């Protein structure tokens, strides 16, 4: 079961959408329909799903229908046709009152233009959702303050939105949604108003929060870097239509059409970038001479990794997984000799980044980057590759 699933969703703006719908079925484009009927096509035949705990990023140029699509999920915009399911419940079939309660329970929303309440302080803004659910004032305040701390605005809770910079207002908007504990977050360009540095911080923060909260997040962005960093999957829209849907790798490596190509060509950095530029230092290394299974296992545990590379005579000798090390420990092995495997991929520092995707895709372990003397110079994990690309991409 998907957390959210959207089936054949259409949104036509205008008084007589039926006519425009028929034209759409005949294959007319958004512009033609605008010219002939004066009806705007917001979203046309969109279907996709979001799983529990997943971050799906919706991307596309301005006017491609991102906001409209997301607003159809909680029916801030009434879909013209199609269905929206959340937890298998048909949102489009809810009565007005049911919808209101449903929104309280399921949706936190961050708005593109902040939409903060100017007559309320930061704390009162953040508490709003809890207040209308009639949460006790004490609890309301605690949760409000916690959310304010999460977004790094502690000390500002008594200020009014007009006293804050755009980026800070954006964070208040984020806190307002976080305080709610709703299981779905709809985030419309939630970080667009932030300057690049804070933006990176907030992205990291969101990913960190997501680790513990496991919310289902629909995130709109028109920034590919951001999409690559945040998205478990990415949905690309053009003129109201979903043109491609897939993981960052899929979209980067096999763009569905020219539009996607143009969208990602800025990031064709993957051809320019090399393994060396996206690798990271291994968190921990094992030494063949001194480490036995027990200490290797302890190193993995403290570093929080599930495999470790082994060095012998200044060279990369092999890799040990946590499972194998534990096994060896039980057997009473004193060295790593029998558990070391060479069953991992290693690449040269000058390997182009786009060749790394397939290697990473069918491999659960990091790639080893080794130089001509077979010395380990770094490792590449999925996250570091995407982060590396995103960092150097063009916004």
């Amino acid at each position, binding site marked *: 079961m998907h957390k959210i699933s959207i089936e054949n969703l259409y949104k036509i703006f205008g008084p007589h959408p039926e006519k425009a719908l028929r034209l759409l079925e005949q294959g007319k484009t958004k512009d033609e329909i605008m010219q002939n009927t004066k009806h705007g096509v917001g979203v046309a035949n969109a279907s996709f799903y979001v799983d529990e705990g997943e971050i799906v990023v919706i991307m596309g140029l301005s006017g491609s229908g991102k906001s409209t699509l997301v607003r159809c999920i909680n029916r801030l915009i009434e879909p013209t046709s199609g269905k929206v399911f959340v937890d298998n419940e048909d949102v489009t079939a809810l009565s007005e009152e049911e919808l209101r309660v449903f*929104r309280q329970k399921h949706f936190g929303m961050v708005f593109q233009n902040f939409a903060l*309440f100017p007559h309320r302080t930061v704390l009162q803004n953040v508490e709003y959702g809890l207040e*209308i659910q009639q949460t006790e004032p004490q609890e309301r305040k605690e949760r409000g303050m916690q959310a304010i701390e999460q977004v790094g605005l502690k000390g500002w809770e008594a200020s009014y939105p007009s006293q804050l910079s755009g980026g800070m207002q954006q964070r208040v908007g984020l806190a307002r949604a976080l305080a709610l504990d709703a299981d779905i977050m709809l985030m419309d360009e939630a970080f667009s108003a932030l300057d690049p540095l804070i933006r990176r911080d907030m992205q990291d923060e969101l990913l960190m929060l997501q680790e513990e909260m496991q919310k289902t997040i629909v995130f709109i962005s028109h920034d590919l870097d951001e999409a690559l960093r945040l998205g478990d999957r990415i949905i690309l829209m053009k003129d109201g239509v979903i043109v491609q849907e897939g993981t960052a790798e899929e979209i980067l490596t096999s763009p569905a059409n020219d539009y996607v190509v143009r969208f990602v060509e800025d990031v064709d950095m993957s051809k320019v970038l090399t393994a060396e530029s996206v690798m990271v230092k291994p968190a921990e290394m094992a030494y063949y001479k001194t480490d036995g299974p027990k200490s290797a296992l302890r190193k993995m545990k403290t570093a929080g990794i599930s495999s470790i590379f082994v060095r012998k005579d200044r060279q990369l000798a092999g890799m040990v997984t946590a499972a194998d090390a534990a096994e060896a420990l039980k057997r009473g092995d004193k060295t790593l000799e029998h558990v070391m495997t060479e069953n991992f991929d290693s690449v040269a520092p000058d390997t182009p980044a786009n060749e790394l995707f397939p290697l990473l895709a069918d491999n659960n372990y990091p790639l080893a980057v080794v130089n001509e003397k077979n010395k380990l110079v770094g490792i590449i994990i999925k996250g570091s590759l995407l982060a590396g690309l995103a960092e150097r991409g063009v916004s």
Partner: protein
Amino acid sequence: MEGYKIPIGQSIEALIDLLVDNFSFITKAFSNVTESGITILINIMMFFPPWLLILFFAGLAWFFSKKEGIAAFTLIGLVLIWNMGLWEPTVNTIALVLISTMFAIVIGVPLGIMAALNDIFYKIVMPILDFMQTMPAFVYLIPAIPFFGLGPVAAIFSTVVFSTPPAIRLTCLGIKQVPEELVEAADAFGSTKWQKLFKLQLPIATPTIMAGINQTIMLALSMVVIAAMIGAKGLGGEVWKAIQRLQPGRGFEAGIGIVIVAIILDRIMQRVGGKQE
């Protein structure tokens, strides 16, 4: 063209007769309540020595405006009125204005809210308001007499009718001016209509509503003066008496009194509204 006269006047008279005959219990009730309200308010204000009340008003002006100038003007203005021997009519006028304004707010603000939230109601109410506001003020005196006879209640009735439109209009405007995106945000979190109204729309509309109430007070003051013609006492009554007795000096003094009261009310109300922004 003059052969057949369309019976507009007759119809209205017939309607008024009908209302007087059948709904006099309502007008009587209104009359009783209002009359005792006026009497109590005036008695309270006249119970205190003028200087004490003047200090109280000046303090009030200070409290609302936080401006020494306005407080000082209130003090000096009211002392001047007292000195001109116009204290009792002034108290009378203020009482009538306060009570009329209260009615106008109680009627006008809810109607304004309804107009803002309901399109059909909006389309019905707005032309009526336009019509009401283009009518010359003293036309409203006419229907008041058959309902309430001559006297302060009739004066309040016509004052309320005359001064309510801006309260309705600006309440409606204030709520409609609340940015769509904020209403949307409130909706997105699952607010009820009432929560939206009380937590978002009314607070944001408050400065505009206050501006409307300010206009209402000003209109009420001007109408209370005109209502002297149908037996309202107060500063208007003094002017009216002066006209009939050909005492231009006396009339002018009463006129100054009206201006002073108007300025004080206006300045205080402007601050009350502006403070929220």
